[in-house]
Protein backbone atom coordinates (compact mmCIF):
# COMPACT_ATOMS: atom_id res chain seq x y z
CA UNK A 1 0.00 0.00 0.00
CA UNK A 2 2.64 2.52 1.06
CA UNK A 3 4.77 1.20 -1.76
CA UNK A 4 2.08 1.97 -4.34
CA UNK A 5 1.62 5.36 -2.71
CA UNK A 6 5.32 6.20 -3.01
CA UNK A 7 5.35 4.90 -6.57
CA UNK A 8 2.46 7.06 -7.69
CA UNK A 9 3.33 10.04 -5.49
CA UNK A 10 4.70 12.03 -8.46
CA UNK A 11 1.27 11.91 -10.09
CA UNK A 12 -0.35 13.15 -6.88
CA UNK A 13 2.24 15.92 -6.69
CA UNK A 14 1.44 16.95 -10.26
CA UNK A 15 -2.26 17.03 -9.39
CA UNK A 16 -1.46 19.16 -6.35
CA UNK A 17 0.65 21.58 -8.40
CA UNK A 18 -2.19 21.80 -10.90
CA UNK A 19 -4.72 22.65 -8.18
CA UNK A 20 -2.43 25.24 -6.60
CA UNK A 21 -1.41 26.81 -9.89
CA UNK A 22 -5.05 27.37 -10.72
CA UNK A 23 -6.23 28.35 -7.23
CA UNK A 24 -3.51 30.92 -6.67
CA UNK A 25 -3.89 32.06 -10.26
CA UNK A 26 -0.28 31.51 -11.25
CA UNK A 27 -1.79 30.75 -14.64
CA UNK A 28 -5.05 31.84 -16.18
CA UNK A 29 -7.95 29.73 -14.87
CA UNK A 30 -9.43 29.71 -18.36
CA UNK A 31 -6.41 27.84 -19.61
CA UNK A 32 -6.19 25.67 -16.54
CA UNK A 33 -9.30 25.40 -14.37
CA UNK A 34 -8.61 24.04 -10.86
CA UNK A 35 -8.62 20.25 -10.64
CA UNK A 36 -11.43 20.36 -8.09
CA UNK A 37 -13.65 22.24 -10.60
CA UNK A 38 -12.81 19.63 -13.21
CA UNK A 39 -13.89 16.87 -10.84
CA UNK A 40 -17.13 18.71 -10.12
CA UNK A 41 -17.77 19.16 -13.84
CA UNK A 42 -17.12 15.45 -14.37
CA UNK A 43 -19.71 14.51 -11.76
CA UNK A 44 -22.23 16.84 -13.39
CA UNK A 45 -21.56 15.36 -16.82
CA UNK A 46 -22.03 11.89 -15.38
CA UNK A 47 -25.26 12.80 -13.61
CA UNK A 48 -26.99 14.31 -16.61
CA UNK A 49 -25.97 11.29 -18.66
CA UNK A 50 -24.17 13.20 -21.38
CA UNK A 51 -20.81 11.59 -20.70
CA UNK A 52 -22.33 8.11 -20.59
CA UNK A 53 -24.23 8.60 -23.84
CA UNK A 54 -21.13 9.76 -25.69
CA UNK A 55 -18.93 7.07 -24.13
CA UNK A 56 -21.38 4.44 -25.28
CA UNK A 57 -21.19 5.55 -28.90
CA UNK A 58 -17.38 5.88 -28.77
CA UNK A 59 -16.91 2.46 -27.22
CA UNK A 60 -19.29 0.96 -29.77
CA UNK A 61 -17.09 2.36 -32.55
CA UNK A 62 -13.93 0.99 -30.99
CA UNK A 63 -15.49 -2.41 -30.38
CA UNK A 64 -16.75 -2.59 -33.95
CA UNK A 65 -13.58 -1.41 -35.67
CA UNK A 66 -11.15 -3.26 -33.44
CA UNK A 67 -13.23 -6.45 -33.43
CA UNK A 68 -13.33 -6.53 -37.23
CA UNK A 69 -9.63 -5.70 -37.44
CA UNK A 70 -8.71 -8.54 -35.08
CA UNK A 71 -10.76 -11.13 -36.96
CA UNK A 72 -9.72 -10.08 -40.48
CA UNK A 73 -6.13 -9.25 -39.51
CA UNK A 74 -5.58 -12.61 -37.82
CA UNK A 75 -6.96 -14.50 -40.81
CA UNK A 76 -4.87 -12.48 -43.25
CA UNK A 77 -1.68 -12.75 -41.21
CA UNK A 78 -1.91 -16.48 -40.64
CA UNK A 79 -2.98 -17.00 -44.24
CA UNK A 80 0.11 -15.10 -45.39
CA UNK A 81 2.36 -17.26 -43.26
CA UNK A 82 0.64 -20.53 -44.21
CA UNK A 83 -0.02 -20.25 -47.94
CA UNK A 84 2.66 -18.88 -50.20
CA UNK A 85 0.27 -17.48 -52.87
CA UNK A 86 -1.58 -15.43 -50.25
CA UNK A 87 1.75 -14.05 -49.13
CA UNK A 88 2.81 -13.15 -52.67
CA UNK A 89 -0.48 -11.35 -53.21
CA UNK A 90 -0.84 -9.55 -49.91
CA UNK A 91 2.69 -8.85 -48.66
CA UNK A 92 3.33 -5.97 -51.09
CA UNK A 93 -0.01 -4.37 -50.21
CA UNK A 94 0.70 -4.64 -46.50
CA UNK A 95 4.17 -3.22 -47.06
CA UNK A 96 2.83 -0.23 -48.96
CA UNK A 97 -0.08 0.35 -46.59
CA UNK A 98 1.95 -0.07 -43.38
CA UNK A 99 3.74 3.31 -43.37
CA UNK A 100 0.69 5.36 -44.40
CA UNK A 101 -0.16 7.65 -41.49
CA UNK A 102 -3.64 6.28 -40.86
CA UNK A 103 -4.96 9.66 -39.79
CA UNK A 104 -4.73 10.69 -43.45
CA UNK A 105 -7.68 8.38 -44.10
CA UNK A 106 -10.08 10.39 -41.91
CA UNK A 107 -11.46 12.61 -44.72
CA UNK A 108 -11.83 9.63 -47.07
CA UNK A 109 -13.77 7.51 -44.62
CA UNK A 110 -16.05 10.51 -44.17
CA UNK A 111 -16.50 10.86 -47.93
CA UNK A 112 -17.40 7.18 -48.14
CA UNK A 113 -19.58 6.67 -45.11
CA UNK A 114 -20.59 10.06 -43.80
CA UNK A 115 -20.36 11.59 -40.35
CA UNK A 116 -21.75 8.72 -38.30
CA UNK A 117 -20.52 5.47 -36.81
CA UNK A 118 -19.67 3.85 -40.14
CA UNK A 119 -16.77 6.15 -41.01
CA UNK A 120 -15.17 5.77 -37.56
CA UNK A 121 -15.53 2.01 -37.56
CA UNK A 122 -14.01 1.81 -41.05
CA UNK A 123 -11.11 4.07 -40.04
CA UNK A 124 -10.37 2.07 -36.88
CA UNK A 125 -10.72 -1.18 -38.82
CA UNK A 126 -8.28 -0.09 -41.56
CA UNK A 127 -5.79 1.37 -39.12
CA UNK A 128 -5.81 -1.51 -36.64
CA UNK A 129 -5.76 -4.28 -39.20
CA UNK A 130 -2.12 -3.58 -40.08
CA UNK A 131 -0.49 -4.26 -36.67
CA UNK A 132 -2.76 -7.29 -36.14
CA UNK A 133 -1.87 -8.75 -39.55
CA UNK A 134 1.84 -8.19 -39.03
CA UNK A 135 1.70 -9.69 -35.53
CA UNK A 136 -0.18 -12.78 -36.72
CA UNK A 137 2.15 -13.16 -39.70
CA UNK A 138 5.36 -12.92 -37.68
CA UNK A 139 3.97 -15.21 -35.00
CA UNK A 140 2.74 -17.88 -37.38
CA UNK A 141 5.90 -17.74 -39.50
CA UNK A 142 8.01 -18.36 -36.42
CA UNK A 143 6.03 -21.43 -35.36
CA UNK A 144 8.48 -24.23 -34.87
CA UNK A 145 8.82 -26.35 -37.95
CA UNK A 146 9.64 -29.41 -35.83
CA UNK A 147 6.31 -29.16 -34.04
CA UNK A 148 4.49 -28.86 -37.35
CA UNK A 149 6.32 -31.91 -38.72
CA UNK A 150 5.67 -33.98 -35.61
CA UNK A 151 2.00 -33.15 -35.66
CA UNK A 152 1.80 -33.95 -39.38
CA UNK A 153 3.64 -37.25 -38.98
CA UNK A 154 1.33 -38.20 -36.16
CA UNK A 155 -1.49 -37.88 -38.63
CA UNK A 156 -2.93 -34.44 -37.92
CA UNK A 157 -4.65 -32.88 -40.90
CA UNK A 158 -3.38 -29.55 -42.22
CA UNK A 159 -6.27 -27.67 -40.64
CA UNK A 160 -5.75 -29.47 -37.35
CA UNK A 161 -2.09 -28.41 -37.38
CA UNK A 162 -3.10 -24.85 -38.15
CA UNK A 163 -5.51 -24.77 -35.23
CA UNK A 164 -3.56 -26.78 -32.65
CA UNK A 165 0.06 -25.91 -33.43
CA UNK A 166 0.39 -22.77 -35.50
CA UNK A 167 -2.31 -20.70 -33.77
CA UNK A 168 -1.01 -21.23 -30.22
CA UNK A 169 2.53 -20.63 -31.43
CA UNK A 170 1.51 -17.38 -33.08
CA UNK A 171 -0.37 -16.21 -29.98
CA UNK A 172 2.30 -14.11 -28.21
CA UNK A 173 3.17 -12.03 -31.28
CA UNK A 174 -0.46 -11.80 -32.30
CA UNK A 175 -1.48 -10.56 -28.85
CA UNK A 176 1.31 -8.01 -29.01
CA UNK A 177 0.01 -6.77 -32.35
CA UNK A 178 -3.46 -6.49 -30.89
CA UNK A 179 -2.08 -4.38 -28.04
CA UNK A 180 -0.62 -1.93 -30.54
CA UNK A 181 -3.96 -1.95 -32.35
CA UNK A 182 -5.82 -1.22 -29.12
CA UNK A 183 -3.73 1.89 -28.48
CA UNK A 184 -4.09 2.94 -32.11
CA UNK A 185 -7.86 2.48 -31.99
CA UNK A 186 -8.17 5.11 -29.25
CA UNK A 187 -5.93 7.52 -31.15
CA UNK A 188 -7.91 7.12 -34.37
CA UNK A 189 -11.25 7.29 -32.57
CA UNK A 190 -10.47 10.53 -30.76
CA UNK A 191 -8.82 12.19 -33.78
CA UNK A 192 -11.68 11.37 -36.10
CA UNK A 193 -14.29 12.42 -33.57
CA UNK A 194 -12.48 15.70 -32.91
CA UNK A 195 -12.46 16.49 -36.61
CA UNK A 196 -15.92 15.34 -37.68
CA UNK A 197 -18.60 13.81 -35.48
CA UNK A 198 -21.99 14.40 -33.95
CA UNK A 199 -21.41 12.31 -30.87
CA UNK A 200 -18.64 10.55 -29.01
CA UNK A 201 -15.77 11.68 -26.79
CA UNK A 202 -14.06 13.78 -29.43
CA UNK A 203 -17.30 15.54 -30.30
CA UNK A 204 -18.03 16.22 -26.63
CA UNK A 205 -14.53 17.63 -26.07
CA UNK A 206 -14.86 19.84 -29.13
CA UNK A 207 -18.31 21.18 -28.31
CA UNK A 208 -17.52 21.82 -24.65
CA UNK A 209 -14.34 23.63 -25.67
CA UNK A 210 -16.19 25.70 -28.25
CA UNK A 211 -18.80 26.56 -25.62
CA UNK A 212 -16.11 27.79 -23.25
CA UNK A 213 -16.82 25.29 -20.45
CA UNK A 214 -13.20 24.35 -20.10
CA UNK A 215 -13.53 22.53 -16.79
CA UNK A 216 -15.96 20.10 -18.42
CA UNK A 217 -13.67 19.81 -21.44
CA UNK A 218 -10.77 18.85 -19.17
CA UNK A 219 -13.04 16.33 -17.45
CA UNK A 220 -13.78 14.56 -20.74
CA UNK A 221 -10.14 14.72 -21.90
CA UNK A 222 -9.01 13.08 -18.67
CA UNK A 223 -11.77 10.49 -18.94
CA UNK A 224 -10.62 9.45 -22.42
CA UNK A 225 -6.98 9.38 -21.33
CA UNK A 226 -7.88 7.24 -18.34
CA UNK A 227 -10.01 4.87 -20.42
CA UNK A 228 -7.14 4.34 -22.87
CA UNK A 229 -4.80 3.60 -19.98
CA UNK A 230 -7.30 1.29 -18.26
CA UNK A 231 -8.02 -0.58 -21.49
CA UNK A 232 -4.30 -1.25 -21.92
CA UNK A 233 -3.90 -2.49 -18.35
CA UNK A 234 -6.99 -4.70 -18.58
CA UNK A 235 -5.71 -6.11 -21.85
CA UNK A 236 -2.32 -6.93 -20.34
CA UNK A 237 -4.07 -8.73 -17.49
CA UNK A 238 -6.14 -10.80 -19.93
CA UNK A 239 -3.02 -11.63 -21.93
CA UNK A 240 -1.18 -12.70 -18.80
CA UNK A 241 -3.94 -15.18 -18.05
CA UNK A 242 -4.28 -16.38 -21.63
CA UNK A 243 -0.59 -17.05 -21.89
CA UNK A 244 -0.33 -18.67 -18.46
CA UNK A 245 0.35 -22.00 -20.17
CA UNK A 246 3.54 -20.57 -21.60
CA UNK A 247 4.96 -19.51 -18.24
CA UNK A 248 7.40 -22.42 -18.28
CA UNK A 249 9.19 -20.82 -21.19
Amino acid sequence: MTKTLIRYLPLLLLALVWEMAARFEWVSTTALPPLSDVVRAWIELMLDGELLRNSASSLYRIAGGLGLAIVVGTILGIGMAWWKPVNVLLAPIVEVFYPVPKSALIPVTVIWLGFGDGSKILLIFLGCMVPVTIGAFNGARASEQVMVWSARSMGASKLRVLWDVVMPGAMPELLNGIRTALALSFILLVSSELIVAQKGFGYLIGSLGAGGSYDAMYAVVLTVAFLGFAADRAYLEIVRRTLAWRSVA
Partner: protein
Amino acid sequence: MNSDMQTPRNGVPEMLGRLAWTIVWGFARIFSIVALLAAWEILARTGTFTPFQLPALSAVLERIWSDAVSGDLAINAGLTLYRALTGFAICAVLGIAIGMAMSRNVVANWFFDPIVSVGFPMPKIAFLPVVILWLGVYDTAKITMIVVDAIFPVIAATVIAIQGVERELIWSARNMGASKRELLHQVILPAASPQIMTGLQVALPLSLIVAVVAEMLMGGYGLGGAMITAAQFANSTSVFAGIVEIAVIGYVLIKIMVLIRRRLLIWHPEANAPATA
Protein backbone atom coordinates in the same frame (compact mmCIF):
# COMPACT_ATOMS: atom_id res chain seq x y z
CA MET B 1 34.53 -9.49 -61.59
CA ASN B 2 33.13 -10.66 -58.34
CA SER B 3 29.89 -11.85 -59.82
CA ASP B 4 31.85 -13.74 -62.47
CA MET B 5 33.60 -15.70 -59.83
CA GLN B 6 30.39 -16.55 -58.06
CA THR B 7 28.51 -17.79 -61.14
CA PRO B 8 28.49 -21.53 -61.28
CA ARG B 9 30.53 -23.11 -64.09
CA ASN B 10 27.67 -24.62 -66.04
CA GLY B 11 27.06 -21.18 -67.44
CA VAL B 12 24.46 -19.57 -69.66
CA PRO B 13 21.30 -21.71 -69.26
CA GLU B 14 21.59 -21.56 -65.50
CA MET B 15 22.00 -17.79 -65.59
CA LEU B 16 19.04 -17.39 -67.92
CA GLY B 17 16.98 -19.58 -65.66
CA ARG B 18 17.85 -17.50 -62.68
CA LEU B 19 17.17 -14.28 -64.57
CA ALA B 20 13.74 -15.58 -65.60
CA TRP B 21 13.04 -16.52 -62.00
CA THR B 22 14.04 -13.05 -60.80
CA ILE B 23 11.74 -11.45 -63.35
CA VAL B 24 8.81 -13.71 -62.47
CA TRP B 25 9.39 -13.14 -58.79
CA GLY B 26 9.72 -9.38 -59.23
CA PHE B 27 6.54 -9.33 -61.26
CA ALA B 28 4.70 -11.38 -58.65
CA ARG B 29 5.82 -8.93 -55.99
CA ILE B 30 4.34 -5.92 -57.73
CA PHE B 31 1.44 -7.79 -59.31
CA SER B 32 -1.04 -7.16 -56.52
CA ILE B 33 -0.15 -3.48 -56.32
CA VAL B 34 -0.58 -3.03 -60.06
CA ALA B 35 -3.84 -4.98 -59.92
CA LEU B 36 -5.09 -2.81 -57.08
CA LEU B 37 -4.23 0.41 -58.90
CA ALA B 38 -5.80 -0.91 -62.11
CA ALA B 39 -8.96 -1.88 -60.23
CA TRP B 40 -9.07 1.63 -58.76
CA GLU B 41 -8.85 3.23 -62.21
CA ILE B 42 -11.39 0.84 -63.76
CA LEU B 43 -13.93 1.11 -60.93
CA ALA B 44 -13.74 4.89 -61.11
CA ARG B 45 -13.94 5.05 -64.92
CA THR B 46 -16.82 2.65 -65.35
CA GLY B 47 -18.88 4.67 -62.93
CA THR B 48 -19.28 1.93 -60.31
CA PHE B 49 -18.43 4.71 -57.90
CA THR B 50 -19.18 8.36 -58.45
CA PRO B 51 -16.15 10.62 -58.95
CA PHE B 52 -16.96 12.05 -55.53
CA GLN B 53 -16.63 8.68 -53.84
CA LEU B 54 -13.64 7.54 -55.83
CA PRO B 55 -11.94 9.89 -58.28
CA ALA B 56 -9.95 8.07 -60.96
CA LEU B 57 -6.31 7.37 -60.20
CA SER B 58 -5.30 9.30 -63.32
CA ALA B 59 -7.25 12.35 -62.12
CA VAL B 60 -5.58 12.10 -58.71
CA LEU B 61 -2.11 11.88 -60.25
CA GLU B 62 -2.92 14.85 -62.47
CA ARG B 63 -3.94 16.82 -59.40
CA ILE B 64 -0.69 15.93 -57.64
CA TRP B 65 1.22 17.04 -60.72
CA SER B 66 -0.59 20.37 -60.92
CA ASP B 67 -0.05 20.90 -57.17
CA ALA B 68 3.62 20.19 -57.70
CA VAL B 69 3.87 22.62 -60.62
CA SER B 70 2.04 25.42 -58.81
CA GLY B 71 4.27 24.98 -55.77
CA ASP B 72 1.44 24.17 -53.35
CA LEU B 73 2.76 20.68 -52.89
CA ALA B 74 6.20 21.92 -51.88
CA ILE B 75 4.75 24.40 -49.36
CA ASN B 76 2.30 21.94 -47.79
CA ALA B 77 4.60 18.95 -47.75
CA GLY B 78 7.48 21.11 -46.53
CA LEU B 79 5.47 22.48 -43.62
CA THR B 80 4.16 19.07 -42.60
CA LEU B 81 7.65 17.62 -42.78
CA TYR B 82 9.11 20.56 -40.89
CA ARG B 83 6.63 20.09 -38.03
CA ALA B 84 6.90 16.32 -37.92
CA LEU B 85 10.71 16.32 -38.07
CA THR B 86 11.16 19.17 -35.57
CA GLY B 87 8.84 17.37 -33.16
CA PHE B 88 10.67 14.13 -33.80
CA ALA B 89 14.07 15.73 -33.20
CA ILE B 90 12.90 17.18 -29.88
CA CYS B 91 11.49 13.76 -28.93
CA ALA B 92 14.76 12.08 -29.79
CA VAL B 93 16.98 14.43 -27.79
CA LEU B 94 14.65 14.92 -24.83
CA GLY B 95 13.45 11.32 -24.77
CA ILE B 96 16.93 9.83 -24.74
CA ALA B 97 18.03 12.37 -22.13
CA ILE B 98 15.09 11.56 -19.85
CA GLY B 99 15.56 7.84 -20.39
CA MET B 100 19.25 8.12 -19.51
CA ALA B 101 18.50 10.21 -16.45
CA MET B 102 15.92 7.65 -15.31
CA SER B 103 18.34 4.78 -15.52
CA ARG B 104 21.15 6.63 -13.76
CA ASN B 105 19.37 8.66 -11.14
CA VAL B 106 17.00 7.33 -8.47
CA VAL B 107 15.08 10.59 -8.08
CA ALA B 108 14.56 11.01 -11.81
CA ASN B 109 13.38 7.42 -12.00
CA TRP B 110 11.01 7.89 -9.08
CA PHE B 111 9.52 10.98 -10.68
CA PHE B 112 9.25 9.91 -14.30
CA ASP B 113 8.46 6.21 -13.96
CA PRO B 114 4.77 6.55 -13.00
CA ILE B 115 4.33 9.36 -15.51
CA VAL B 116 5.70 7.22 -18.31
CA SER B 117 3.86 4.06 -17.32
CA VAL B 118 0.55 5.90 -17.08
CA GLY B 119 1.21 8.28 -19.96
CA PHE B 120 2.47 5.79 -22.52
CA PRO B 121 -0.79 3.89 -23.09
CA MET B 122 -2.95 7.03 -22.95
CA PRO B 123 -4.45 8.42 -26.15
CA LYS B 124 -2.60 11.72 -25.75
CA ILE B 125 -4.17 13.09 -28.88
CA ALA B 126 -7.22 13.81 -26.68
CA PHE B 127 -5.17 16.66 -25.19
CA LEU B 128 -5.10 18.41 -28.57
CA PRO B 129 -7.87 20.89 -27.63
CA VAL B 130 -6.04 21.65 -24.38
CA VAL B 131 -2.84 22.32 -26.30
CA ILE B 132 -4.79 24.61 -28.63
CA LEU B 133 -6.21 26.40 -25.60
CA TRP B 134 -2.70 27.02 -24.26
CA LEU B 135 -0.63 27.63 -27.34
CA GLY B 136 -2.98 28.60 -30.13
CA VAL B 137 -3.14 26.93 -33.50
CA TYR B 138 0.28 27.67 -34.95
CA ASP B 139 3.51 25.69 -35.20
CA THR B 140 4.28 25.77 -31.46
CA ALA B 141 1.02 24.03 -30.64
CA LYS B 142 1.39 21.47 -33.41
CA ILE B 143 4.98 20.63 -32.54
CA THR B 144 4.16 20.45 -28.82
CA MET B 145 1.40 17.96 -29.55
CA ILE B 146 3.83 15.85 -31.59
CA VAL B 147 6.37 15.87 -28.76
CA VAL B 148 3.77 14.92 -26.15
CA ASP B 149 2.69 11.97 -28.28
CA ALA B 150 5.94 10.66 -29.68
CA ILE B 151 8.30 11.08 -26.74
CA PHE B 152 6.99 8.11 -24.74
CA PRO B 153 8.25 5.32 -27.01
CA VAL B 154 11.69 6.96 -27.03
CA ILE B 155 11.88 7.21 -23.22
CA ALA B 156 10.60 3.67 -22.73
CA ALA B 157 12.98 2.23 -25.31
CA THR B 158 15.97 4.07 -23.82
CA VAL B 159 15.22 2.86 -20.29
CA ILE B 160 14.73 -0.75 -21.39
CA ALA B 161 17.80 -0.60 -23.63
CA ILE B 162 20.09 0.65 -20.89
CA GLN B 163 18.71 -1.90 -18.43
CA GLY B 164 19.45 -4.59 -20.96
CA VAL B 165 23.14 -3.78 -21.41
CA GLU B 166 25.17 -6.80 -20.36
CA ARG B 167 26.59 -6.44 -16.88
CA GLU B 168 29.84 -8.09 -17.97
CA LEU B 169 30.49 -5.28 -20.47
CA ILE B 170 30.08 -2.65 -17.77
CA TRP B 171 32.19 -4.57 -15.25
CA SER B 172 34.99 -5.09 -17.74
CA ALA B 173 35.05 -1.44 -18.71
CA ARG B 174 35.11 -0.39 -15.05
CA ASN B 175 37.83 -2.85 -14.32
CA MET B 176 39.93 -1.39 -17.07
CA GLY B 177 39.56 2.01 -15.44
CA ALA B 178 36.83 3.71 -17.49
CA SER B 179 35.46 6.85 -15.88
CA LYS B 180 31.69 7.26 -15.47
CA ARG B 181 31.55 9.48 -18.53
CA GLU B 182 33.62 7.13 -20.65
CA LEU B 183 31.51 4.23 -19.47
CA LEU B 184 28.35 5.99 -20.59
CA HIS B 185 29.63 7.25 -23.93
CA GLN B 186 31.77 4.37 -25.01
CA VAL B 187 30.05 1.34 -23.52
CA ILE B 188 26.47 1.85 -22.37
CA LEU B 189 25.14 4.08 -25.15
CA PRO B 190 26.59 2.07 -28.04
CA ALA B 191 25.43 -1.19 -26.49
CA ALA B 192 21.96 0.26 -25.97
CA SER B 193 21.73 1.91 -29.38
CA PRO B 194 19.86 -0.82 -31.30
CA GLN B 195 16.88 -0.67 -28.96
CA ILE B 196 16.99 3.11 -28.71
CA MET B 197 16.92 3.15 -32.50
CA THR B 198 13.84 0.91 -32.42
CA GLY B 199 12.15 3.45 -30.15
CA LEU B 200 13.00 6.20 -32.62
CA GLN B 201 11.59 4.08 -35.43
CA VAL B 202 8.28 3.97 -33.57
CA ALA B 203 8.37 7.68 -32.79
CA LEU B 204 8.92 8.89 -36.37
CA PRO B 205 5.72 7.53 -37.98
CA LEU B 206 3.86 8.60 -34.86
CA SER B 207 5.17 12.15 -35.33
CA LEU B 208 3.80 12.17 -38.86
CA ILE B 209 0.40 10.78 -37.78
CA VAL B 210 0.06 13.46 -35.11
CA ALA B 211 1.30 16.20 -37.43
CA VAL B 212 -1.43 15.32 -39.91
CA VAL B 213 -4.18 15.15 -37.25
CA ALA B 214 -3.05 18.43 -35.69
CA GLU B 215 -3.08 20.11 -39.09
CA MET B 216 -6.51 18.72 -39.85
CA LEU B 217 -7.93 20.08 -36.63
CA MET B 218 -6.14 23.42 -36.58
CA GLY B 219 -6.26 24.15 -40.30
CA GLY B 220 -3.79 26.37 -42.12
CA TYR B 221 -1.10 25.21 -44.50
CA GLY B 222 0.26 21.69 -44.42
CA LEU B 223 -0.92 18.46 -46.01
CA GLY B 224 -3.47 17.73 -43.26
CA GLY B 225 -4.92 21.24 -43.45
CA ALA B 226 -5.09 21.09 -47.23
CA MET B 227 -6.96 17.78 -47.09
CA ILE B 228 -9.53 19.01 -44.61
CA THR B 229 -10.14 22.18 -46.66
CA ALA B 230 -10.56 20.04 -49.77
CA ALA B 231 -13.00 17.78 -47.93
CA GLN B 232 -15.07 20.77 -46.86
CA PHE B 233 -15.37 21.84 -50.48
CA ALA B 234 -16.28 18.25 -51.46
CA ASN B 235 -13.13 18.23 -53.58
CA SER B 236 -12.41 14.54 -53.25
CA THR B 237 -9.73 14.49 -55.96
CA SER B 238 -7.60 16.70 -53.73
CA VAL B 239 -8.41 14.57 -50.70
CA PHE B 240 -7.16 11.45 -52.46
CA ALA B 241 -4.15 13.37 -53.77
CA GLY B 242 -3.39 14.29 -50.16
CA ILE B 243 -3.55 10.66 -49.08
CA VAL B 244 -1.16 9.60 -51.82
CA GLU B 245 1.24 12.43 -50.94
CA ILE B 246 1.19 11.63 -47.22
CA ALA B 247 1.55 7.93 -47.94
CA VAL B 248 4.62 8.53 -50.10
CA ILE B 249 6.18 10.77 -47.46
CA GLY B 250 5.49 8.18 -44.76
CA TYR B 251 6.98 5.43 -46.88
CA VAL B 252 10.11 7.42 -47.69
CA LEU B 253 10.64 8.47 -44.05
CA ILE B 254 10.39 4.88 -42.81
CA LYS B 255 12.79 3.64 -45.47
CA ILE B 256 15.26 6.43 -44.61
CA MET B 257 15.13 5.38 -40.96
CA VAL B 258 15.92 1.79 -41.94
CA LEU B 259 18.90 3.03 -43.97
CA ILE B 260 20.13 5.19 -41.10
CA ARG B 261 19.79 2.25 -38.78
CA ARG B 262 21.90 0.05 -41.05
CA ARG B 263 24.48 2.79 -41.37
CA LEU B 264 24.72 3.58 -37.67
CA LEU B 265 24.64 0.00 -36.48
CA ILE B 266 26.91 -1.38 -39.16
CA TRP B 267 29.26 -2.65 -36.45
CA HIS B 268 26.44 -4.48 -34.72
CA PRO B 269 25.72 -8.18 -35.40
CA GLU B 270 22.13 -7.29 -36.27
CA ALA B 271 23.36 -5.51 -39.43
CA ASN B 272 23.70 -8.93 -41.03
CA ALA B 273 20.20 -10.02 -40.11
CA PRO B 274 17.32 -8.87 -42.31
CA ALA B 275 15.95 -5.60 -40.97
CA THR B 276 12.34 -5.51 -39.88
CA ALA B 277 10.98 -2.27 -41.21
